[in-house]
């Protein structure tokens, strides 16, 4: 993506290395996923805004397999998908006590 300035000239493109950002966060992996897609067929028919609004890119549509991949181990537990999934198609729970993210600053 890039930033468009007022006089029309293109500023230097902004590149984002999300993996590097996520790498800064301390996680303790849960044994089982705390996020689940209720019905993959609903995702197939959806515009899938979750692929953009999730701050950790947890949701990625696998076109080949026709299913939504959920990288729950990257989840920041913000709950945006719980509220913003257009079809309430995400079964959202808290990770098991003591697991998931543990910020170092917050």
């Amino acid at each position, binding site marked *: 993506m890039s930033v468009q300035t007022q006089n029309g000239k293109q500023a230097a493109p902004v590149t984002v290395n999300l993996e590097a950002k996520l790498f800064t966060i301390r996680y303790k992996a849960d044994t089982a996923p705390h996020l689940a897609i209720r019905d993959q067929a609903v995702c197939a028919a959806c515009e899938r805004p979750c692929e*953009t609004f999730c701050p950790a890119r947890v949701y990625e549509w696998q076109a080949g397999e026709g299913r939504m991949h959920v990288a729950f181990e990257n989840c920041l537990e913000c709950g945006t998908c719980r509220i913003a999934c257009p079809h309430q198609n995400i079964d959202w729970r808290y990770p098991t006590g003591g697991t998931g993210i543990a910020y170092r600053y917050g």
Partner: protein
Amino acid sequence: MAKEHFDAVVVGAGPAGAAAAYTMAKAGLSVVLLDRGEFPGAKNMFGGIIYRHELEELIPGCTQERTFPVERHITEQRYWLLGPESVVSIGHKHERFNSEPYNAWSTFRVKFDPWLAGKAEEAGALPIYQTVATGLIRDRSGRVIGVHTDREDGDLYADVVVIADGVNSLLAEELGVHRTWRPDEVSLAVKEVIALPRETIEERFNLEGREGTTIEFLGATSQGMTGLGFLYTNRESISLGIGVMVSDLMRSGVKPYELLESVKAHPMIRRLIKGGETKEYSAHMIPEGAWRSMPKLAGDGWVICGDAAQMVNFVHREGTNLAMASGRMAGETIVEAKANGDLSAQALAAYERRVRESFVGKDLKKIQRMPEFLASQDPKQLFDGLIGALNEAAFRFFTVDSRPKAQTHKEIMQDLIQAAGGPGGLLRLAWRGWRAING
């Protein structure tokens, strides 16, 4: 933990829960303080400012302690209205903010929350961390009598359950106190903590010693969405972030991490964080519904506090403040009810009255029209159009080009009025904006 019974179980050891647990434990009640994190604060993030007054109200003298976990006391607050490559700013700095008692500090939740929860533990609250409250236990009459947890034999029974489980309040939803928030009742904030040498921060922000600066910014940085950015100085780092309405995020297709990266690249911000190293990326939702989204606050065997009840004054950047106040009032109400031997729903309803009559309720009511005002505006017009026009107006105002001032000023006014949608539009905007922050 089979069939253990307590005076109160507090779910969530954030500022609201810790304040409630502290207040009750100090009065001699048996209290459990539950938290799902590895430690209190492990799951929490905020912009980074806490205020003295409510802390001192809760625990007199606590902000004077050597262990009080803060970064810098705030002496300067700035507001930035950003164009794509410009800024119009107002701000205030006062030497009085540089002497005790300080008004506000920057801090981190991973330091602050365990410290406050520790106060509750010292007062006698029993900490049970790394434990999720998975549901409410209710008796045949429907009264809440405890919580299920994800520990083996982990049911906890209590006279009152204090629901302080944050913005994703699954317990309150289960109870039917409120439905899942709508996307226009919450924002998503993303933040980075960016490390810089202490001297660099002090030079860049014109600070001495432990003085600190806050900058709230809005305009081009939210990319046509309703949003607010923040930049706060810590001792050896900067907290930089931006929150945008979840409803706008869904519409725009903007990725939160790309939004944050373009904030970091803004010419006015880039210079302030230059050479810094990102220590942590984080994300958290913020309640934005204010008074009209606030649910019923007390019922049969339960009370609800803080973010779980939408208690955030987003106009004035106060959240933890309201959380602590509501937790304290919940605790005080339960202590009184216990002393009177009446823990009925009617007795607990005193908490609701107390909150609504305090600054918490009054301030949230004062801004009650703000969410609908913002929802009624096209964010592109407000944040790009109007703020952009203001920046262009300032640019022309300060450009010396030997044209008659009267002519330039007239053109500036015409452009500003046009950006606001004509003379009627400007008046309407001013009137509705005024009403939005005045009840």
